[in-house]
């Protein structure tokens, strides 16, 4: 069940100078989950989406809204 890669999330994380492990720790998941979200292999819950947005200081639209 592979989806589209989330390159915006990866860019936002790198801009914040966080590794996948750092972000995973901040939002309470494993590093692999962050890797899978970025690779489009996992569809996160809304709660995790908002936690990621808060940790990266961005909005849901910035990372997850598709036009």
């Amino acid at each position, binding site marked *: 069940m592979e989806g589209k890669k989330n390159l915006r999330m990866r860019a936002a994380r790198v801009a914040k100078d966080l590794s996948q492990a750092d972000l995973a720790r901040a939002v*309470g998941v*494993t590093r*692999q989950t962050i890797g*899978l979200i970025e690779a489009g292999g996992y569809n996160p819950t809304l709660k995790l989406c908002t936690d990621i947005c808060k940790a990266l200081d961005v909005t849901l639209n910035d990372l997850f809204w598709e036009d």
Partner: protein
Amino acid sequence: MITTLKSKWRAYVGPTDERIKAHENEVFARMGKFLMIANLCLAYYALHLEGLATRTNLMNDWPRVSLVLIPSMVLLVYTGLSGAWACSRFTKAGYVDRNRFAETETFPRAYFALLALLSAIAFFALLTLSEAAAEFQVVGWEKIAWADIASTAAFLSAFVGVMSYIAMYLEYLKARRSRRARLGEMEG
């Protein structure tokens, strides 16, 4: 005291990953459905067995306790098999747990040793209490052979603890292999 222990445990194992928890829920939901159906079949089988035994006077030469034992053994075996099936589904997906050790690349010796120890303690408690409860019903409180029960339970629990640790190591290897294969497919 319990709250402190719980918070220490949580700090040690880390948060539960929602992705892994969702998979675990799916596996246990399927296992629960299977157990429910199997329990229903077993209950009907036990009812018919008892009914037949009563009608054919089998009760006289086949004591009632045997009629309870047969379904109990089946229950024990298929519950064990269901647990094994759930574990295999979990490791096939690449997980060994649902916390920070879920997808670890190095074998967490201390954590699994702790889990094996806790399994042995839980098994010891289960064996001791169930055997004591059975003896209490049959021979009464005063005649419960505590020393015999405890020594047998201690031996079997130690065996279960060691076997659990070995099983966890094998499951860890299997999970790591599955995970690497899956990640390889995604990258490829």
